[in-house]
C-alpha cells in the first residue's frame, strides 16, 4: 500500500511522533518538507498535517502555511479523494486553505481564540470526544456515540463561522465527526469539558466528501497506553493493570490509535 506523507511546514513540531505512531500501526510514513512538493501525489497515498506553530502563528494560526505552493497540491489531492488529516495547527491550515468545511472551496470557518469563561489563551488538557454521525473516514473505526479521551493543547481552537447556523448544517450532514463531551458522552456545554467554546462543541470538522478531516485534539499523544493519565476511566485502569504484566504493554494502543487507524484504513482502501 501507499506511503503516508507527514508534511513538515517550518515551525510544526509534532511530525516525529505523528509519523512514529502511524508506523506503530504497521503503515509506512515519511516526513516531507514543505518545499519538496514535486511528485508528491505519485509518491504518497494520503497526507497528515501535524501540529505545531507553522510560521510562528504569524498573522493568524495556519494562515501563512495555507498559502504555500504545497497546499495547492494538497487541494488537488483532496479533490482526487485522497485522505488528509490535519491535527491542531494542521487543522488550522486546512481551515485557512478552505479545504474544511470545504462547501464552497472558500474560507468559510475559522479557528478563533479559545473562549470558555474561565481561562484565557493556551490550554493543555485532556478532553473527551464523542464520535457523532460521521460521513468521514473516522467512521472506519468509530461507531456513533463512542467516547474517546485525548489531550489537546491550543490557544486557537474555537470552530466558528460568520453564520453559526452553518455549523448546525454541518452537524446534520455528518461533517462534525468529533464533538467535545462529558465522560458519559453528553455533549459538553461548559469548561473544562468544552475547552474553547467551539460551535456545536466541534472538535473535528470534515469536508462534505469526508476525505479531509481537521481536528484540534492530538491523537498521536494518545496513541499508546503509557500516554494516558491513570485517572482517565477505563484506559487509565488498563494502564494501571500493566503493573503485573509485561512492560511492552506500555506501548499497546491507546485511545488515539483509533483515529489514526481510521485514517490509515482510508489510505489503504485508496481513493473511493
Amino acid at each position: 500500500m501507499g506511503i503516508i506523507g507527514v508534511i513538515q511546514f517550518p515551525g510544526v513540531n509534532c511530525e516525529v511522533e505523528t509519523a512514529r505512531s502511524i508506523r506503530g500501526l504497521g503503515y509506512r510514513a515519511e516526513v516531507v518538507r514543505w518545499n519538496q512538493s514535486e511528485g508528491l501525489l505519485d509518491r504518497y497515498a494520503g497526507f497528515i498535517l501535524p501540529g505545531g506553530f507553522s510560521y510562528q502563528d504569524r498573522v493568524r494560526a495556519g494562515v501563512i502555511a495555507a498559502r504555500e505552493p504545497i497546499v495547492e497540491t494538497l487541494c488537488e489531492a483532496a479533490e482526487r479523494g485522497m485522505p488528509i488529516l490535519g491535527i491542531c495547527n494542521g487543522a488550522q491550515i486546512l481551515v485557512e486553505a478552505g479545504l474544511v468545511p470545504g462547501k464552497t472551496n472558500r474560507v468559510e470557518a475559522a479557528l478563533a481564540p479559545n473562549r470558555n469563561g474561565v481561562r484565557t489563551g493556551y490550554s493543555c488538557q485532556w478532553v473527551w470526544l464523542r464520535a457523532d454521525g460521521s460521513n468521514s473516514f473516522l467512521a472506519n473505526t468509530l461507531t456513533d456515540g463512542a467516547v474517546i479521551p485525548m489531550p489537546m493543547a491550543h490557544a486557537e481552537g474555537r470552530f466558528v463561522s460568520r453564520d453559526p447556523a452553518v455549523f448546525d448544517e454541518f452537524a446534520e450532514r455528518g461533517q462534525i465527526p468529533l464533538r467535545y463531551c462529558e465522560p458519559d458522552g453528553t455533549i459538553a456545554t461548559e469548561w473544562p469539558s468544552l475547552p474553547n467554546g467551539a460551535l456545536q462543541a466541534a472538535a473535528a470538522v470534515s469536508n462534505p466528501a469526508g476525505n479531509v478531516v481537521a481536528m484540534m485534539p492530538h491523537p498521536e499523544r494518545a496513541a499508546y497506553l503509557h500516554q494516558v493519565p491513570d485517572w482517565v476511566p477505563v484506559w487509565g485502569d488498563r494502564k494501571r493493570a500493566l503493573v503485573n504484566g509485561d512492560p511492552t504493554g506500555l506501548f499497546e494502543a491507546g485511545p488515539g490509535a483509533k483515529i489514526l487507524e481510521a485514517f490509515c484504513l482510508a489510505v489503504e482502501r485508496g481513493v473511493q
Partner: protein
Amino acid sequence: MIEIPLDISLALGEIEAVKKLLGREPSDVELQIFDVLWSEHCSYKSSKPLLKEHLPVTGPTVVQGPEEDAGILSFTEWQGVHYGVVIGHESHNHPSQILPVEGAATGIGGVVRDVICMGADLIGVLDPLRFGDPYGPNGEECVAIARGVVSGIAQYGNALGVPNLGGDLFFDGSFDKNCLVNVVALGLLECDRIVNSAVPKEAKSEPYVLVLVGKPTDSSGFGGATMASKVFGEDHEEGENRGAVQIPDPFLKRVLNVALREFYDRMDARRIPFGCKDLGAGGISCMASEIAERGGFGIELDLDAAPVAEDLPAHVLAVAETQERYGLAVPGRWADDVLKLFNEEFALPTIYRGARAAVIGRFVNDPVVRISHKGELVCDTTVAAITTGAVADRVEGVFAPKPYVRTLDTPFDPASALRSMLGSVNGASAEPIFRSYDTEVMGNAVVRPGEADAAVILPVHGCPVGLAVTVDGNPWYTDLEPHKGAALAVIEAARNLAAVGATPIGLTDCLNYGSPEDPVVYHQFAAGVRGIAEAASRIGLRDDPKYPIPVVSGNVSFYNQSENGGAVKPSPIIAMVGTIADASHATTLRLKDPGNALYLVGNRYDDLGGSLYDRVVRGGMGGNPPKIRYDEERALIHFVSRFVEEGLVRSAHDISRGGALMAMAEMVIAGDSHFAKRGLRADFAPLGEEIEYERTLFGESGGFLLEIEPDVEERFRERAHERRVALYRVAEVTGQDELTIEGPGLAPVSWRGEEMRTIHQSALAELFPGV
C-alpha cells in the same frame, strides 16, 4: 553604522591585567571581549575553586561531566544502543526581572542550545521559579513579572515543541526586586554520537572552517553577561538594561534544531568528524575561541562574513548575544554542502529575514585568535590569553543563626490550618500555571507534572525504562541554615524520584545568590556548595552506594541583589534525574482502591522551622529546619524507590512542604468527585498515646505516604523492618471524597474533597488566569 559605545565593567586592576597579558594596550574589541569573558557570569571567578574542590563529578553513571555546555549521564542500553541523557541548568534572573516575557523565553532558548549542540534531541524542560510576594508592598509588580515569566516560558517552550516536565515555585518578599527564573533542559543522545564543542583533531591534516548558522547578528543582548554580574541599581526599571536582554525566536529555533539534526545525521552517515558549539554569553568571539581552544587550534575570524541585521561596530558584533545561533566546525571541502542544507533545503533566508548559514572563519594550527573587520585586524591575541580565566578572592563571613520570631498568636486548629495552607500561594496547586505549558508534545509522557512528585517519560520509544525528573529547593530552609538547606534540596529531590519508583543517576545545580563581594552572601554560597556535596555523597547511588550522586553540570548566578531590596534568600536549586526499570510501575499520588492501607513511612521530629505551617499559620520566622539524619534518609529513600519500582505500591507521595497532613490532603485532592471517589480515614493511634500533633501533622521531616494493598502489607512490613525503616499504618483508603483524621487526644476532623480542591486551585488561578 549605529553608534554603540563600549560597555566595560572590568575593574581597573583587571584592565591592567589585560594589558599585562597582551603586553600592550588592548584594542576596543579586545577590551570588550575580556570584559565579557572575565565577567562573573562567564568566568565563574568567585565560584570555580569551591565548585572544583567540593562537588563530585565522576562515577559509574557519568558519561561526560561538567566540561562542556551540559553534562551527560548514562540512561540505558536498548537494542544495542547506549543512550545518554544530557542535562543543562541555567538561570535567566536578571533579564526576567527587566523584561519578564523575553527574559524567561530566552532562558529556555539558551539552555536548550547547550543540550542540542552536544548532539542530543531535546526531550524536556523544567522551570524552577521564585517570585516576590504577590500580596506584599510590591505585589502588583511581582504579579506582573510572574505572569510575564509564565507567558514567556509558555510561548517559547510550546512553540519549540518540548514538553514541560515540571518545576517548582516559591513566592517570597526577598524576590520582590530579583525574581529567579531557572531552566533545566534534558536531551537524549546515543553515547557513541556525542558532538563536542571542539574542532576535531582531523583539522591537523585538512582545512576546517567555522560556519555560523541562525539568526543574523544584531545588537540585542549586548552587555547581557555583564548585566548578570552586577547588582541592580535603583534605576534599572528606567530601561538602561533593556537592550541587554535578548530577543526570543522559538520558531527559528525549531527550524534550526530540525535542520541541525539532519546535519548531524548526514555528517555521521558520511563519517565526517565535526564540532558544534552554541552561541551564548560572549557571542561570536567566545564561541569561536572556545571551539578552537578545545581542539587545540587557533581561529581567524572575519566579522564581515557574519550575516547581520544591521551595520554594527566590531566590538558589538564580536560579543552581542543574539539568540538562535550555532557555530559549526566542518571540513572546508564540505562547507558548500552544509550551507546548502541550511540555506536551500531548509530555506532559512526565505522563512526568516536575514537568517542563514555562512562561513565566517577558518581554524589554524597556530593558537591565535585573529579577528578582522572592514579590512582591519581588530583583535590579535592568543587562545591562551583569551581563555585565561579570571579569579576573584572572596571572603567568607560567619554564619549567624536567626532567632525565632513568631508573629501570629493562633491556637492549634488543624481544620483551619489545612485550609489556610491549601489556599496560600505557596501551598496551592500550580495547575493554573502548567495548563499553559505543553506537557504532552513528543508523546513520551507517562506521569505528568502535578500527577506525582516527579515526572516520568519514556524517551526511547519501545523501551520500558522510564526517565524521572524533579527540581527542588526551599529558600526558607536555606535562609535559616544555608548548608542544611542546600543538602535538603538534594535529599528532597531524591525523595521525589523515589516516590515514583526511580533512583537517581545524577543531578545539576543552579546556585542563585546575592553579591559574592558580601562576606555573608559568600558564606551562604560556600555553605550551599558544601551542603550539596555532602548530601550527594551521603545519599549516594542506590545500586552502587560507594559512589555519590554525581553533579554533571550546573550554573552559578550571583548578584541577585538590588540596592533597595537586598540579596535574595539563598537559592540553590537541584534538578535530579533518575531511572525506573519498568515505567509501568511508576506511581502517582492519586489514591487508587478503597480498602488499601496508607502507611506513614519515616519518623516525625520537631522540625517546624522554615515549614509552610510555620510561615502561614504561626507567622513564624527563624528556627530549625528539618534535621538531617543521613542514615535514616538513605535507608528510607532506597527502600521506597525499590518497593515502588517492584510495582508493589499503589499510590505514593513524599512528605515535604506542608507536612504529612498536607500530603494526605493532596492525595485526596488528586482524585475527583466524578469517576471514582477516593478519600482517607486516618487514625494516628499507631504513633503512640502521647502525640504532639503540631509536628506530626505539619512538620516537614523527610518521609512518605504509601498506599499498600492488603495482601502486600506483610511483605512491606517485613522489608521495612529489615531495612530499619519506621512504618505507621495511619490510614485507610475509602470510597468517599473526604479526608478524616483522629487519634489519641485529637477529636475527629474532616474536610470534603471538593472543598479542598476548590481552595487548592483558587489561589494561583486568580493570579494566573491564562496566557
